[in-house]
């Protein structure tokens, strides 16, 4: 996967739990866990905006591009 989701890193820095973030942004824990594991098919701008607002961060802090080895 070329796009890595660093949500767990940002959450750890903010000392926040997935459940708390899910509640704050109105997303289910399942969906947030899927996103955290980079298994989501796509991310909506509205979701990204809500996460950035709740975690006081930039989209670049959450999403990272890593070139594939092959």
């Amino acid at each position, binding site marked *: 996967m070329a796009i890595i989701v660093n949500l767990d890193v940002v959450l750890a820095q903010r000392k926040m739990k997935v459940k708390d973030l899910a509640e704050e942004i109105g*997303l289910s824990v399942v*969906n947030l866990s*899927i*996103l955290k*594991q980079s298994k*989501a*098919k*796509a991310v909506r701008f509205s979701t990204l905006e809500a996460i950035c607002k709740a975690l006081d961060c930039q989209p670049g802090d959450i999403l990272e591009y890593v070139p594939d080895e092959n």
Partner: protein
Amino acid sequence: MKVVRNLFWVVAIVTVSILYTRYVPADSKAAFIVSMVILSIFTFHFAIRKSLSFKSYFLSPVNFLSGKFASKTSYDIPIDLMFEKALEVLEDTKFKVQHSDSKSFEIFATTNMSWQSWGENLYIDFTEENGKTIMNFHSVAVMQIHTWEKNRKNSEHLINTIEDSLII
């Protein structure tokens, strides 16, 4: 192919109905026995349909009175998350979850009667194969030999809803 199959069933149902009314008088003993047998099977199926203990009975190929449909879908999502995701999606559909087991990753859901069917039972379980999660979907029409592709449509609808819900 679907049209041919549906047409075959229409012809079969009409033919059996005509032959039955033609050769079996309504006040005969045979007509009474046939009616009672159909009624008994109907009642039996409705009495047991919401019991998970009869899963193998409904899924058995011997039980030709219940139309069945099975499908397998592979997901690149851990099994525990996929199980929760399926439950979440089912909550937003017409299916009513009767039983779910997070240890064996099994879900049993039902639909109510509608003008199209006598109700359906949905058995979903999850397994892991080569690092992927496989969703095994079984849909059973409780008292319908032919389902007019309704089971397949339900399966496709559920799979599409799961796919859509992966856009977060």
